[in-house]
């Protein structure tokens, strides 16, 4: 047909400045209009689930954090919580509070990175640099206590590797307070900037029915009107005791998703300040592996305690746990036949679910809009491909 003869199929990616990682989009274009965009993934597939079967439980943790490399703590926390559930260990309240606080700081850091990448896609490197500037204090704080800026390995089965000092918590509060002031600058650059609004309002509208059908999670789902937040629906750690506001919007466009994430950053900031002030005293590890906490250093560095954690073995059974990462709902299903290695460890990644919705959203849009939609979904390809 003559109409279709004018359309060309272009490859966007896998190497492309604006596909956030390795994504190949097979796009059918005519002029500036995109008729369909089919995502091809798998370029970053590292076989995590197969890896998990070949590794002892504690050995898999570093590999797991490389999945979602932007919000590594959320997965770190989920995995350890799953192991604790399987072993029947109850972590001390101090550890739960610190983990919750770190989760929320991770949420701020991850949303800032998303904002940076999104602004860059829409053509404004200023937002990129300002967001990265805002991330620095938090990443330095992470590094101070966990040793890593992007990957932490902070949780242990039974609690946390290392305790935090009162002084550290005061500095967290100070950093968050400064961030809250600066957030208004970022908002002025984005949600209050007229060109940003024109580029994102009405773009990539995901209706409530489509959102439920495609199974999207996280801020994308909340921006389409469904108030599903695992921290509220199926709470974990200290969330049952926290008064958390679930932020939703009804429009379902890219602007709504931006607003949801920015409001979530504000909410997380508030929670971090609250948690940092009210962390209960107490030990930071409980259970049979608590010698490996560095309170007991240098004993914790002894061969015996290391071997004990390496030898962690889970009895036969299956367990399932889900948490809320900055991207959405993360979950793990563990099937164990006894022994130090899992029989099957299944990971659910929110970016994978959100990317599925993309092929629906990108029909009959403009190229520029397609890029904006892809950016607004907050995809991390380590997580998509596992």
């Amino acid at each position, binding site marked *: 047909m003559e109409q279709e003869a004018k359309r060309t199929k272009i490859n966007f990616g896998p190497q492309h400045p604006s596909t956030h990682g390795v994504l190949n989009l097979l796009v059918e274009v005519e002029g500036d209009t995109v008729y369909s965009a089919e995502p091809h993934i798998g370029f970053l597939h590292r076989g995590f689930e197969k890896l998990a079967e070949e590794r002892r439980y504690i050995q898999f943790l570093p590999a797991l954090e490389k999945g979602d490399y932007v919000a590594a703590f959320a997965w770190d926390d989920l995995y350890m919580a799953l192991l604790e559930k399987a072993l029947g260990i109850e972590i001390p309240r101090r550890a739960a509070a610190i983990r919750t606080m770190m989760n929320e700081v991770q949420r701020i850091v991850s949303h800032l990175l998303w904002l940076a990448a999104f602004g860059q896609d829409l053509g404004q*490197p200023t937002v990129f640099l300002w967001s990265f500037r805002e991330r620095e204090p938090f990443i330095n704080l992470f590094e101070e206590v966990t040793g890593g800026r992007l990957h932490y390995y902070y949780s242990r089965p039974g609690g946390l590797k290392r305790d935090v000092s009162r002084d550290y918590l005061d500095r967290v509060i100070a950093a968050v307070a400064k961030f809250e002031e600066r957030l208004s600058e970022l908002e002025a650059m984005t949600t209050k900037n007229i060109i940003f609004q*024109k580029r994102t309002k009405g773009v990539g509208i995901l209706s409530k029915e489509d959102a439920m059908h495609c199974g999207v999670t996280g801020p994308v789902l909340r921006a389409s009107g469904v108030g599903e937040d695992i921290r509220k629906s199926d709470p974990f750690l200290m969330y049952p005791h926290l008064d958390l506001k679930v932020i939703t919007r009804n429009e379902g466009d890219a602007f709504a998703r931006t607003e949801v994430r920015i409001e979530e950053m504000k909410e997380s900031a508030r929670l971090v300040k609250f948690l940092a002030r009210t962390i209960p005293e107490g030990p930071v590890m409980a259970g049979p592996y608590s010698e490996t906490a560095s309170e007991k250093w240098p004993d914790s560095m002894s061969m015996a305690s290391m071997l004990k954690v390496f030898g962690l073995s889970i009895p036969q059974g299956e367990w399932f746990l889900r948490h809320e990462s900055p991207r959405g709902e993360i979950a793990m299903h563990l099937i164990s036949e006894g022994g130090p290695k899992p029989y099957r460890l299944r990971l659910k990644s929110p970016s994978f679910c959100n990317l599925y919705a993309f092929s629906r959203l990108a029909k009959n849009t403009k190229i520029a809009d397609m890029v904006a939609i892809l950016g607004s979904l907050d995809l991390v390809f380590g997580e998509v491909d596992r």
Partner: protein
Amino acid sequence: MAVFDITIIIGAVLLTLFGGLFAAYIGLLERKLIGRIHSRYGPTMVGPYGLLQTVADAIKFMQKDFFVPKRADKLLFIVSPVFLTFLSFLLLSYLPWGNFSFIVSQYDLLIILGIVALSPVIILVAAWASNSKYSSIGGLRAVTQILAYEGVLFLSILPLVFISGSFSLAEIISAQKNYWFMFSEPFAFLLFLFAVIAITERQPFDLPEAESELVQGWLTEFGGPFFAVILLGQYIMLYVASFLLAALFLGGWGGAFGWIGFAVKVFAGVLVFIISRATYFRMRLDQLLDFSWKFLVPLGFANFLLSLLIVYTSL
């Protein structure tokens, strides 16, 4: 006659040098200023305070491979970027430099506009000669954008021409004796700003070069020396745009400020362009075109008629 020729030749050489140096140092200023807006330093390593950065970049570009894609039209591929930059330098030669100008004409503004109107054709040729999908999409976008904003450009300048009664830059400047046109023709000023940013393809109207979407748009296939030449041409256009802004709307070199004041005005124009680059997101093509055809062009006509009315009723 011989003396006349030598003056022209020396002047041409100096002008080319000026063009090159301007492009180099304004490019550096842009990078450093935008860097500061971004909370970072910008180039600092090469030379004291990074002053030799553009020299290093120029050398880098020139020593790169002279690469013409296999299926590209070789002659047009090589000629079109050079011709585009030639057009920019041609524009430069119509602008006065102090009291000296190469070409003095009663219609110099009109000729400048005419040369500017040639650029979309050359861009189209360059894009077509590249023979690549990204280039053709970028080329079509660039041409659509420039054509939309040329109308706005002409409409913004028309009232000035009628008020001052001439197409000559010198006479337009002397017509601003009492008030700068920025104040007496504010709408024309706004229209001119938008038009000029769109025609020089600077942010927020840089869709044809949208890095995050189409690699580099119509410039995609031009690497190394070609890219340096195109970049040079673009910075010269920036100078021409700032010059026109200062001459047409900020009182030019007349009045109390003279030529030094004029240099400051040109610099202010350049700053406006640099800061708008750091602050605004890229507009989508159809939004850009809507803005032009549905808002700016009607505004331009209305402004022009209003200005005519005011001029003829007060005479």
